[in-house]
Structure formats: C-alpha cells, structure tokens
C-alpha cells in the first residue's frame, strides 16, 4: 500500500504542472488546448537534445520551458480573431509538433541515463533527495503560476474565459491576454515533459500519448472529490490547485493499484475511464440532490 502511494506520489509530482496547465486552459481560459500534448513532448525533446549536445542542464531546462511557451503563442496566433476553433487549432498544432519534435530529437527516442541532468546528481545520492528536488522544481513553477493568478492579470485571464466579448467591449487587448494564457499553459506542459524525461531517463516521441485527456480527467476528478466536502462555486486558488493535486494523486494511485493487482495493462485505461464515469455520475446525482 505504502509503495503504491509513494509510486503514485512521485508520478503526481512530475505530472502536476501538466494538470495545472490543463486546469488553466479548461477552467480559466475555457478552451480545451490539445497543444499541451505536443508541448509536453517538446519540453522533453528540447531538454534531452540540448543535454545530449553538452549544453548546461539549466540552460536546457529554460529552453524547454520557453519552447513550450512559444508553442502556446503559436496556437494562440492560429486562433486569432476566432478564425480557427481552439480545439481544432490545438489538434493542428499537435500535428505540426509531432514532426517538429522528431526533427528536434533526430530520432524517436533519446536516453538520458548516462547524461547529467538537473536532478541526476541528487538521484545518485539518494532517491529521496532526487524526488525532493523534483518536487521543488515542479512546486516552484506551479507556485509562480499560482502567484500570477492572484494578480490583476490572473483576474483578467479569468474574466477572458468568462465573458471575452465584454472584455473586448471595454477595450482590453483580448488576443494579447489569450496569448499570455496559452504561453503560460504550454510552458507548464513543457515543464512537466522536461521533468518526466529526467525522472524516467529518456525522451520519447510518443510519451505524451493521451496526456491532455488524462489531465482533463484528473482535473475533473479532483474537483468532484473536493466538491463533496467543500463548496467549489467561488474561485479559490488554494482549492483549485488542491483539486488538481488530489485528482492527479487519485489517478496515479488507481493506476499503480490496478497494476499491483496484476490487471492486464491492456484494460487499464478502460477501467480508469469507467472509474471516472462512475465518479462523474455520483457527483451529478449529489448535485441534483443539492448535496454539493
């Protein structure tokens, strides 16, 4: 049980920035940004390739985050003036990034096992130290985003998702704010990809398969779990991030638990999807009864 929990916790730490990115795009900007899949691999690909070329891991990590932000800016420009639907723009951007990531890596897979990364030395000392460092890195980025959402910029981003027409009527540059929002979320997805590559020891072109949908599921799950005990009507940054954390932890706990029960991995996603549906149904019933 403890081993399952520790495994889930370690996966949660690296995946949390991705879940927060999805939360911001889905709940705040009110767009399902499929680019996050591509930006996740982009972060891993840029980091792995630069480290392989003997670039300092710090510079490689900063480049990875910036590359994600640039991907976000690209997808935002694609949607400019609502010329292309956000969902379609995200799918197209991911499609383009598939080739882009292959071009960056030069091959489908780069191993980082023999490379010096941001966390390799800490992991060589002890597993615990390594995971503390990964947690710190993941936490710092999530806290930066948390701090931004506390500011007036954060309030404007929430207003943008809520009523973009009103914001435009008030003369605010909504395309600029959308661009900032997407840069933030895709930068976070790249952080997640970069950290994942370092902890699993490789960057792979297929490592983000289904990540956006998984993140969406975990965010919804987290909100439903938290709303059983707390009111989620009013925006509260602590509750929202707490919901992301709980959702991701629950998801990975379920994955690891099922694997330890020797469930055939072929059925894994099917079972997790069914669990998610069950939770959503329960939450829906509770909501109609006024319990939430």
């Amino acid at each position, binding site marked *: 049980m403890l081993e399952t929990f520790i495994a889930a916790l370690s996966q949660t730490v690296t995946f949390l920035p991705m879940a927060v990115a999805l939360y911001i795009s889905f709940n705040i900007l009110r767009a399902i940004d499929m680019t996050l899949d591509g930006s996740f691999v982009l972060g891993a690909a840029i980091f792995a390739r630069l480290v392989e070329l003997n670039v300092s891991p710090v510079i490689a990590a900063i480049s990875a985050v910036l590359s994600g932000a640039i991907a976000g800016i690209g997808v935002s420009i694609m949607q400019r003036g609502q010329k292309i639907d956000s969902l379609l723009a995200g799918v197209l951007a991911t499609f383009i990034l598939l080739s882009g990531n292959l071009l960056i890596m030069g091959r489908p897979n780069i191993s980082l096992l023999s490379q010096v990364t941001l966390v390799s030395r800490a992991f060589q000392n002890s597993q615990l130290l390594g995971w503390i460092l990964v947690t710190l890195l993941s936490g710092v980025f999530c806290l930066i985003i948390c701090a931004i959402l506390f500011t007036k910029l954060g309030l404007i981003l929430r207003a943008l998702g809520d009523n973009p027409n*009103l914001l435009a*009527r*008030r*003369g605010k540059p909504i395309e600029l704010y959308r661009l900032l929002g997407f840069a933030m979320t895709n930068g976070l997805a790249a952080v997640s990809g970069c950290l994942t590559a370092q902890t699993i020891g490789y960057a792979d072109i297929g490592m983000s398969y289904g990540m956006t949908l998984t993140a969406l599921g975990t965010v919804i799950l987290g909100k439903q779990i938290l709303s059983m005990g707390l009111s989620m009507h009013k*925006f509260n940054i602590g509750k929202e991030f707490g919901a992301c954390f709980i959702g991701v932890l629950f998801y990975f706990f379920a994955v690891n638990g099922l694997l330890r029960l020797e469930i055939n991995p072929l059925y894994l996603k099917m079972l997790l999807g069914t669990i998610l549906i069950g939770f959503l149904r329960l939450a829906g019933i509770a909501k109609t009864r006024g319990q939430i």
Partner: protein
Amino acid sequence: MKNIVLSLNNVGLNLPDVSHHILKNISCDIHDGDFIILLGHNGCGKSSLLKVLDRRYQMTQGEVLLYGKRLETYSPAQLAKQVITLTQDPRESLFPSLTVLENCILVSPQTRRSFFLDYLYQFNKNLVTKLDTVVSKLSGGEQQALVLALTILHPPKILLLDEHTSALDPQAAITLMATTSQIVRKHHITCILSTHDLNLALNYGEKILVLADGKLAHSIDFEQKKNLNTQDLLRVCY
C-alpha cells in the same frame, strides 16, 4: 443651445442573413444630456440602432458622428469610454463567474472593500452584503443594479439602455429606472432608452423617437409629449 453629441445621417443597416433592410435612412441629432426614448413594435429596429451606435453592428449606409468625428475612427478603447450599453440580460455586461468585488476591481483602480461597500450602497442595499458572492448567484435586479454601478464608476458620455428593466418584476423595474434616471441626470449623461413601456416613455423621456419598419416614423419633442397620454402614444407607436 445644447451641443450635438451624436449625429445620425441617413443610417442604413443590412444584415447578411436577413433579406429586408433592418434600418433605412435614419437621420437625427442627439444633444448633450438628452434623455431619448426609442419606441416601436418588435423587430422595428430599436435594438439594431443601439447596436450600430456602440458598433456591435457595422452600418451599411450613411454615417454616425460622435462629437463631430466619424464613429469608426474611434478605437475600441476610446469608444468604450464614451458609449456603454446596458441590455435586458445583465450577464452580457458582467463576468458571471467572478464575485461582485472582482467585477468592481476589473473596472476600477480602487481595490479597497470599504470603497465599494459605500459605493454599491447607493445602487442596491443588498449588494453590500454580497460583495464576495458570485455574480451568477445574484437576482436579476441586483445584477442590473451592479451593471449600472459599474457603468457609473467611469461615467460614459452616452448610455444606451436596451430594455434593461424588461426582465425585472415591476417593483425592481421601477426602483432601477428611478436610480438610472437619478444617476444619468447627476452625471449629465446623454441617454437613449429602447422600451415598450409607454408610462416609462412619458415619465422619463425628453424626446421620443418612434421607429416603424426600420424608419424613423415620428419624433416627439418635450412640448408635444406634455400633451400626450399613454393612449395617444399607443396610437402613434403601434
């Protein structure tokens, strides 16, 4: 003689999916501080005319001059400072998922709770206790009062009211209209109100414009209005 604020010259409007002309050759001058009432049957073009004036619709004929400058030469930010529209759905003018306080902070450099507590009290006493309530949880009357309060934080030169009391119960509508009229006069705002309420037209309007099939059918000034009752107005408008 009052200054001309808005000048409409042969304004016409066609919309892509509508075969007939929505507005046809509308010409009139609106003066500083006027309280104009727009009357007419459903579909006569009242709301469309207001949408032309706040540039949600692009006129297809004629010109509108705002302080002598063509309307289209104003940037969205400049126009937003001059012209504000309140519609019958207050959610169009609010951020429904944000709280009352957050909605206030978005339009004001002020962030102090105490400032907004005092300020909102003038518009609706209930709002004072609901500063941290999500706007979508407020009643229709409270939402409209909040929209009005936010509008007056930076008083516009022109206020367009598109049947903004029509979704409220009679008492809430009377209260809101009285507050609106008081605020408009206090800040010397030019106001154009589109409505079907003839009592409202007679009580508040200084000038009544009657639209029929997209045309300006009648213009009733303050002196003429004094001699009219609701029955007379009913015959003229419908």
